[in-house]
Every structure is written in C-alpha cells, then in structure tokens.
C-alpha cells in the first residue's frame, strides 16, 4: 500500500551538494549528510534525488514508478505503450531491511518519444509532463516518483538513512545529490508524499510549509499542472517548471517570483528598469508568491538552487569546498561530510544560492 489514508500529525531536514567539476560519487556522502540531522525527521518520509546516475541511458526519460497493485502496473504499462517507446524496464533494485516496510512495487522505465510522434509534438517535455500528470491523476495506485533524464528520485516512508540503504544508493554515482528527512505536519506520510518531488529533471526537497498552497495550485492548474500528491511541496516543482522551462525566466528571477521582495523594498531600488521589472514580476506572477515558511533545495540537470522564504522562517546554511557547493538545514550536517570548508555562511532570505556544473548546465 502507498498508505495515502494515514495522517500522523507530528520540521524537516534538507541537504544537498553539487560537484561543479562534474565528479561523480556514490550515495554514501549524501546518506551521512542527511543522517546527521535525524532529530529533524520522524521516520515518516525520506528520499533522495540523484543526478548523473544513468549515463548509459542519458538520452532517455527515466520514469521511476511506484505501484500499489499489479493492476496499476498493467494499466500504466498499457498507457505507456500507447505513448512512448520503452527501451528498457526493470525493477528498481532494493534490499530488504526491517526499517522499511510495506514497499509498493518499484519499477523504472527508460523511454523515448516515438520518432513518428516527434514531428507532431511541439514541446517534447510537455508531452512527458502530460504523461506524468495523466498517470498521477487517473491511474489509481500508480505514481511517478521522477521522470527526468539521467536522474532519479528514490523515496520511501522511513528515515532517510534507511531509505538510502533500502535503495542501495551506494551503487549509484552522481555529480549532484539532494536529500530529505521528513516530519510531516499537514499532509499524510505516504510513499509518494515523501520528498523529493520531481517532474522532468526538476526535483525539490522542502522544509516548511506553503501557506499560499491554495492560490498557487489554482494558478498552476490553470497552466495545466495537476496537483494530485496531497502535499504543498509539489507546487514548488511545477512553479519552477513553468517559470524557468516554459516561460524562460532565469533562475534568479524565478526566485524573485517565489520569494518576492516587499513592495517597500522594490520602491527603494534606484535603477528604474530593475524597479519596473520587479514590479512586473509581482503583478504578473502574484499568484505564484510562496507565502509561509520554507527552505528548499531545487535541482535540475547541472544546477542546484537553495532558497528560503523572504523573511527567513526556516534555516539554511551553505558552504563551499573546492568545486563543491553544499547546502543544508544545519551546519553540523555539512561538517559531518565536509569538516573544513573553504567558506561556510548563512544565506540571505529570499536570495538564491546557486551551484552550476562547469561548462554550463546540461539540459535536455
């Protein structure tokens, strides 16, 4: 069972790093990184996003699926067969450990859009997001954990360090990893509801809550996103996808939409063009302002973004060591895996911390 019916009211921990030189490493460091903050989670959700892990299939969308029944799998595979070419499918390797119970069926598919279809499709990525939205909202018991190229989300109900062992993350090598330890407050602790939330190669891990969820999701549904995961965090993924991928905003401006500067601060900006730009962003994208406390790590191929709400109601610490940028909820966690960083600091609220693969981001 995916356990969607449970609600156990009970903060969260986030951690992530990017090796900007592209050096890939296995999941051991991220496991230790997030495990340091065990006190912040309560065993009702843990998960990881890993980038650069499928180099041999890097040109295919990797669909990580969770099924609560055989029927859900059959329906999903029938649906996929109509839409895409599955070049490879296999169970996601796991190891049985007592700490993780009642696993749904976990399967992954490497897919491509059929050559004949490509001509009719204007936006290949929108074609994939439609598939994800359709599966999540219409096939009972089927849930897409991630759908990007050369990346994957691995999540479960449990403590994150156990989730890492469950998914054998020591056997994957990525240049960027993010992690989450969950302490669900407003929404149930179920497998699909564990972080990260992911769409295409976007993934988000989040500490906090989005008080503006209602207005955000109504706006995103008008733009074709279906919020079906029973959690506030999914709006952050769709917001980045809409602003950056579809509307072409740079990440720094997307951050100004989500953690918008106050009007009084915009009025103080001396440069008239910049003032006008920030005004316009607030007016056009008012419905995407994320209100309430949040500290998030957003990742996509070649890029790691840390962002907090504009009045800093959740903590975040960043550090640099050589070519690596590390971001986490707590400094101690950073020092657990990077004892003597070149620099360690507390970022300004609402100002994104960005790490990028050298030589430019590799977007599909």
């Amino acid at each position, binding site marked *: 069972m995916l356990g969607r019916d449970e609600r156990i009211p009970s903060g969260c921990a986030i951690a992530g790093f990017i090796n900007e030189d592209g050096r890939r490493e296995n999941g051991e460091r991220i496991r230790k990184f997030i495990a340091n903050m065990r*006190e912040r989670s309560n065993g009702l959700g843990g998960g990881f996003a890993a980038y650069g892990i499928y180099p041999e299939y890097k040109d295919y969308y990797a669909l990580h699926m969770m099924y609560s029944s055989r029927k859900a799998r059959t329906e999903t595979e029938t649906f996929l067969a109509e839409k895409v070419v599955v070049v490879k499918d296999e169970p996601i390797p796991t190891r049985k450990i007592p700490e993780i119970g009642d696993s749904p069926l976990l399967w992954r598919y490497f897919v491509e859009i059929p050559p004949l279809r490509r001509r009719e499709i204007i936006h290949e990525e929108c074609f994939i997001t439609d598939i994800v939205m359709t599966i999540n909202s219409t096939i009972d018991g089927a849930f897409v954990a991630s759908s990007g190229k050369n990346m994957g989300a691995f999540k479960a109900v449990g403590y994150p360090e156990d989730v890492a062992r469950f998914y054998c993350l020591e056997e994957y090598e990525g240049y960027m990893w993010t992690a989450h330890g969950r302490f669900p407050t407003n929404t149930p602790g179920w497998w699909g509801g564990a972080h990260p939330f992911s769409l295409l190669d976007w993934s988000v891990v989040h500490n906090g809550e989005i008080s503006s969820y209602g207005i955000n999701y109504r706006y995103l549904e008008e733009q074709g996103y279906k919020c079906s995961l029973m959690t506030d965090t999914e709006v952050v993924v769709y917001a980045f996808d809409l602003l950056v991928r579809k509307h072409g905003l740079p990440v720094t401006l997307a951050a100004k939409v989500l953690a918008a500067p106050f009007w009084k601060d915009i009025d103080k900006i001396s440069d008239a063009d910049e003032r006008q730009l920030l005004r316009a962003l607030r007016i056009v994208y008012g419905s995407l302002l994320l209100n309430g406390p949040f500290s998030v790590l957003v990742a996509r191929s070649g890029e790691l973004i840390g962002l907090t709400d504009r*009045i800093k109601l959740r903590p975040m610490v960043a550090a640099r060591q050589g070519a690596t940028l590390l971001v986490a909820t*707590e*400094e*101690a966690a950073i020092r657990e895996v990077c004892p003597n960083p070149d620099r360690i600091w507390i970022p300004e609220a609402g100002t994104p911390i960005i790490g990028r693969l050298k030589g430019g981001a590799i977007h599909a």
Partner: protein
Amino acid sequence: MSIRVVDAHKLSYRELNNEIRAAVAAGAATVKVEGACGQRYIGTGVNAPVHIEIYGTPGSDLAAFGNGPRITVYGNGQEAVGNTLNAGEIVIHGHVNDVLGVSMRGGRIFIRDYAGYRAGIHMKAYREMKPVIVIGGTAQHFLGEYMAGGVILVLGLGADDRPPVGDYVGTGMHGGVIYIRGRVDTDCLGKEVSVLPLTDADWDTIRGLVGDYCRYFGGDTRAILDAPFVKLAPVTHRPYGLLYVP
C-alpha cells in the same frame, strides 16, 4: 581543577548530556566536549557553574534553559543558542544562526562574529535578571523582534560598508535596549522603536561589555569605543495594548 574530556562524535544528544551531567556530579570543574557534530541541548539541565568547552559544531538549542554553566564554543553555533537561558554565560568563537537567545531571561551571550535572523527575539528581564547579548559582527534582519527586556549590543566589526544590522530592527519591541555601533538607517527600524540619546549609564554599560568582548576574543577596546553608537528603545511598553480594545 578537574577536567573531564568527552568525545562527542558517536554520542546522541541524550548520551552526551548524560556524560556531562555525570562529570559534573563527579565534581569536574571543566568538561571538554570534543567532536560535537549537531547534538542539541548541550548543557541543558546542568545547574552548576561548571565550564563546558565545546569543540566542533554544537547542535541547535545550545544551553536551552541553561541555568549556570559557562559554555565556550570553539566553532560556530546553530539556531536558538541560549534558548530561554536563565543564568550562565555562552561565549562563541565564531558565528551563530537564527533566533539567538530566543526568550532568554537571564545570563549573557557573546558572539565573536555575526548572528543570523531574529537575534534576541522576545528576550525579557525580570527584577535583578537582565539578559545580555553581545554580537561582535553584524546581525541579520529582525534583531530584537518582540524584545521585552535586557540588553543587545551589536558592534558591526568587520562589516566594512555594510550596515551593522538588517531590516525590521526592534519590530514589536516593548522593553529593554539595543545599542548599535555605527550608523543605522531609520527605515530599518520597527515602528515600535525610537532612537534615543545615550546617557552616562548607557556608556558605562557599553564600555563594560566591549571590555568583556575584547577579553574573550581580543581586540582594542578603545578603538572599538571610538565610534558613534545608536541607542534604540521602545516607544511604549505595551504597543498592542489597544489592538483588540476599541
């Protein structure tokens, strides 16, 4: 003087605190905690004037409800250092994250470098108990938010051209006093605070605290004092007294 060394690296916060309490019960005057890596509440529940030296990164809520120990950290602090501190002293050779000294009601905290958001939020004084926070570097936004009593001193050392404090200073403040070395843009002040002239008594307080700061961390007291200081105090001690009463 007996010194007890505790290797914290493999210990949970509970085990670590049990070790500290056992050492204090056995008469240790100094407990040296090595390899701290995120354990919360270090020094909580220790009601003795013992010296706890911490190497590494202590976890959040360092000395929460602290009631006597003198704690020295050779490293940075996380969130809520001195949460509801009652008595004792915390000296941090580094910077600290948000909500430093949240709700503290006694004792003193000295931070060598900068402090994150909401330092001194809701600190309060009662009769002879007067909590004190000294921040050597800068303080990020919302310094002294809802402050109800006590003293905050921000020195802004090493800030160069940056302002010593962020925006929204003293928002909701209704007691106590904030001293800031350097200039403060009045746009950054909460509407509940006003700038007041410094009295001789204020200078005595500042001089004393800067002297202590330099004793702990080094520095030239005279050079630090040779700068303008700003005093902030609340306009009224009950800013919201009539909020729900028409």
